[in-house]
């Protein structure tokens, strides 16, 4: 029944990646997007942590959706998310200590990441487990894609490397500003503009093809 009044699991999965990309389309989860994208490694670790928390929280929320009381649901969501974030944080501290030091407070800040609360609220609290899980996987792939695009620009321009490997010649003068806070805002602003521009071009293209 739930499947009829909404997109199918597969559609939700695909929607999360590009058409409803959490960062570029919905402008959610800005703080990790801006804070940890000065290198690819940090960005990928962060998106893996977010993916783990998002998928687990969506599955659990979907399983307990019958028990939720409307006025307490946000509290239940945040407590569920906080539990999984604690697990992710302890895991990172145990197995990737350097990375955990580098990410610092941004791992616990996943708790208040709007993407996860938004997905719990919009999808997982109304849909069966499989739909919720596929939605979560799609959204976290979209988030990873967005983080990767920003981190690629910032790391290549800022330190001339990608995943720590040299891509630009040694003579490249590092644009230090790109790895500092202003670079994050500028890169995301420009990429967002580009995404909107491509989106409007595609919309125009499909319009003319329909008319013709």
């Amino acid at each position, binding site marked *: 029944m739930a499947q009829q009044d909404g997109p199918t699991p597969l559609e939700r999965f695909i929607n999360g990646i590009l058409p409803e990309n959490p960062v570029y389309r919905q402008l959610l989860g800005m703080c990790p997007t801006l804070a940890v994208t000065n290198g690819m490694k940090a960005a990928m670790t962060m998106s893996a942590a977010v993916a783990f928390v998002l998928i687990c929280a969506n599955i659990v929320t979907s399983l307990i959706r019958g028990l939720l009381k409307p006025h307490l649901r946000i509290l239940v969501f945040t407590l569920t998310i906080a539990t999984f974030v604690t697990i992710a944080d302890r895991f990172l501290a145990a197995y990737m200590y350097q990375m955990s030091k580098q990410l610092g407070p941004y791992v616990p*800040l996943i708790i208040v990441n709007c993407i996860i609360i938004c997905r719990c609220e919009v999808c997982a609290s109304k849909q069966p487990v499989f739909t919720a899980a596929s939605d979560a996987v799609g959204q976290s792939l979209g988030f990873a894609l967005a983080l990767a695009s920003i981190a690629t620009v910032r790391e290549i321009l800022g330190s001339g490397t990608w995943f720590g490997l040299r891509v630009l010649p040694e003579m490249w003068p590092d644009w230090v500003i790109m790895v500092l806070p202003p670079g994050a805002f500028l890169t995301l602003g420009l990429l967002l503009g580009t995404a909107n521009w491509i989106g409007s071009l595609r919309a125009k293209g499909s319009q003319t093809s329909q008319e013709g």
Partner: protein
Amino acid sequence: MEYLSSLILIAVGAAIINNFVLHYFVGVCPFIGVSRRVDMAFGMGCAVTFVITIAAFLSWVFTAFVLQPGAPLTAWVWQTFSPASDVTVDLSILNYIVYIFVIASSVQFVEMYLRKFFPPLYKSFGVYLPLITTNCAILFACLMIMKYVSGVTGPEAWDLGKALTLAIFGGVGFTIAIVMMAGIREELDHCDVPVPMRGAGITLIVAGILAMAFMGFTGVDRALANLMK
């Protein structure tokens, strides 16, 4: 005197040098979402400062007395139940859950209190109050305080005064940033911005330029520290 100067350093650091929004990127969502008009931005800033102070107070109390390794209250409870053991009880695994619970309940409490006793103020805060629960700035302040309290012993461990200073001036820094942004965006309405950049795109670019300006404050804390010696 030394204590006062350390408070001033924390205040300047939190409000200007390491501005919550422009240096740590916390609270970017309301920074972009609610910065359309100056009065709304100022209301949001005040609400955040208010809640951040209460949450910081509660989280300091919980961290110092319950959560940190060997906290007095936990140790006392443990001693009552098993007097023979000499284990240090460490509840710091519960940190995040307790903080988010503290934030959510203090937002709820502030909302009820304002609605009962200050209806005009409550009306002017409007929908922002419940939204603050998911504002990263507040959890971030709690985590900063945790870093300086939990597991730190001796004079370096922060007392309540330092924690509250960090929280209040972090909120002030957020207010400064969001009001500046709103002022710029009011002027931006009269500009001819390229269509794809309208809305969030140009806001982020302006924020980038603001962040560059705030980078100019780097090193002010060291100069201040020398001045106050």
